[in-house]
């Protein structure tokens, strides 16, 4: 009797959220999985859905735009996350206990993370303007001859986006590393300084090893986040010039809402999920090794 009432109350409490979960998480996942095996343009209505089995997945191998997007995704991750992790850790270490005004500096580094990505991209678009933009004017004043065309060049567009991304994310890495540093007891540092260890030695022998759970967490989060990069691409380059800045999240959007390949775009989405799934699996395997508990 009493238990019945508890069950009723429990269900009532979670119900409003659960309905949202069913309609906007659970059902879409099932739909998407099914659609990934079909050939369909949603504009033609439900009757036009053709089940094609594994055909879409087979098509991936011959889809150059897909291969380019996938490679760009991996390159983007390799060029952004290690920089964020390494700089983030060093900066956090210095800001935490080797400077005055550490709160102020931390806030200055963190503001770009809070700012709206679209607004920030519009600003950088102007900064990177090839002929008169401040970035190139600065490079010119340093004597650089062959000025990069940034967003309009195949060679430099992705690098420009990498720079913007690092600039935006670095503050996040610093903040989380600083929180990790707080958990290292200051006794260890005192002992080290009594033993006469230099800051550099302390950093490499104490801070880096003790921070490894944080480093691990940030690397995983960073990799997953960078796999999903979309806003920057959509605002700045639309994947261009050519396919030089197309990434998976952007290609999914393009295939779904510009080319109306409702089936195939879901196939692409599941490939992205597979990538993230692999990273998460590796995380679970390694977690034991790195977790403090």
């Amino acid at each position, binding site marked *: 009797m009493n238990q019945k009432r508890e069950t009723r109350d429990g269900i009532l409490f979670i119900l409003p959220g659960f309905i949202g979960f069913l309609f906007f998480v659970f059902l879409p996942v099932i739909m998407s999985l099914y659609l990934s095996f079909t050939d369909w343009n949603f504009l033609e209505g439900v009757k036009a859905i053709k089940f094609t089995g594994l055909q879409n997945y087979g098509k991936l191998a011959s889809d150059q735009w897909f291969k380019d997007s996938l490679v760009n995704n991996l390159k983007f991750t390799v060029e952004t996350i290690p920089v964020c992790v390494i700089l983030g850790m060093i900066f956090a270490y210095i800001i935490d206990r080797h400077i005055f005004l550490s709160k102020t500096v931390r806030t200055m580094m963190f503001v770009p993370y809070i700012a709206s990505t*679209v607004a920030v991209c519009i600003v950088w678009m102007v900064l990177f303007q090839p002929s008169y933009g401040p970035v190139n004017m600065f490079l010119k004043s340093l004597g650089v001859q062959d000025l990069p065309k940034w967003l309009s060049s195949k060679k430099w567009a992705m690098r420009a986006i990498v720079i913007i991304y690092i600039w935006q994310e670095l503050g996040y890495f610093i903040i989380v590393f600083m929180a990790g540093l707080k958990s290292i007891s200051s006794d260890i540092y005192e002992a080290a300084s009594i033993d006469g260890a230099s800051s550099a030695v302390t950093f490499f022998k104490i801070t880096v090893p003790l921070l490894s759970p944080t480093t691990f967490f940030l690397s995983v989060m960073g990799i997953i986040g960078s796999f999903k990069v979309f806003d920057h691409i959509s605002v700045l380059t639309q994947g261009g010039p050519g396919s030089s800045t197309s990434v998976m999240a952007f290609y999914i959007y393009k295939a779904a809402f510009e080319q109306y390949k409702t089936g195939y775009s879901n196939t692409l989405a599941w490939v992205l999920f597979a990538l993230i799934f692999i990273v998460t699996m590796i995380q679970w395997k390694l977690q034991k090794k790195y977790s403090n508990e």
Partner: protein
Amino acid sequence: MKKSQLLKYILTVLFLALGITMLFPLLWMISTSFKVEADVFEFPVKLIPSRSNGFDNYRQVWGKGYNFALYYWNSIKIAVASTVLQVFLSSLGAYGFSKIRWKWRDRIFMLYLATMMIPSQVTLISRFLILREIHLYNTHLGLIIMASFSVYGVFLLRQNMMQIPESLSESARIDGANHWQIYSGIIMPLVKPAVATLAILKFVWTWNDYQNPLVFLNTRELFTIPLGIKEFASETGTFYSLNMAAAVCAIIPLIIVFLFGQRYIVDGITSGAVKE
């Protein structure tokens, strides 16, 4: 001792310079938003404009042709409504998953957690199809309803509620209080900091959200600020001073929220919150 003190001063100066470099794009944005268009690219960069056109730039951005006021209103409406709804629904869910014992509780919660690593791109297209089907595509209501549920919100608040000793709600239960009374009178006041964290993060994310409005809105009058600025930038192309004025307007509310709620934002992201 003296030597390390000196090093500390040097590093402080160095890192202040670094901080200013990080802020430079934003400072440049603010300064350019006040400039006459012809002065936008003067080099060396002057952060204090030699002649100001700020009033006119901002008037144009907020004026009829551009409709920034409308985008602002749309963004406020969507961000506030989805934040309030999400915090409320998440807290109800978190209570149901932590303070009431019932049969399928933990199984359903596991189902929630299992979906956490699925990227939004997987559900994006199907959510679009569902919204179209229930006639909420291209409406604010559709966006708000969709944003009102998040596994992360339930997860965060549940974590916090678990830390409240069981005895507290149980003794209230023995005294005859029902679950709604315990939820609103005892538990919610105790998890206020977590609620603030969730609310602030959710507000910032929704305010900045670009992909959802891009996919689920179509009519210009319904656009939020990110869509509005992007549209404006691609139309006016080279009116850089106006673009910067628009960008300033988009970022200012965030800076204000950040200054007041910095503690909660930092708490949230250090406990594992990531942009959705």
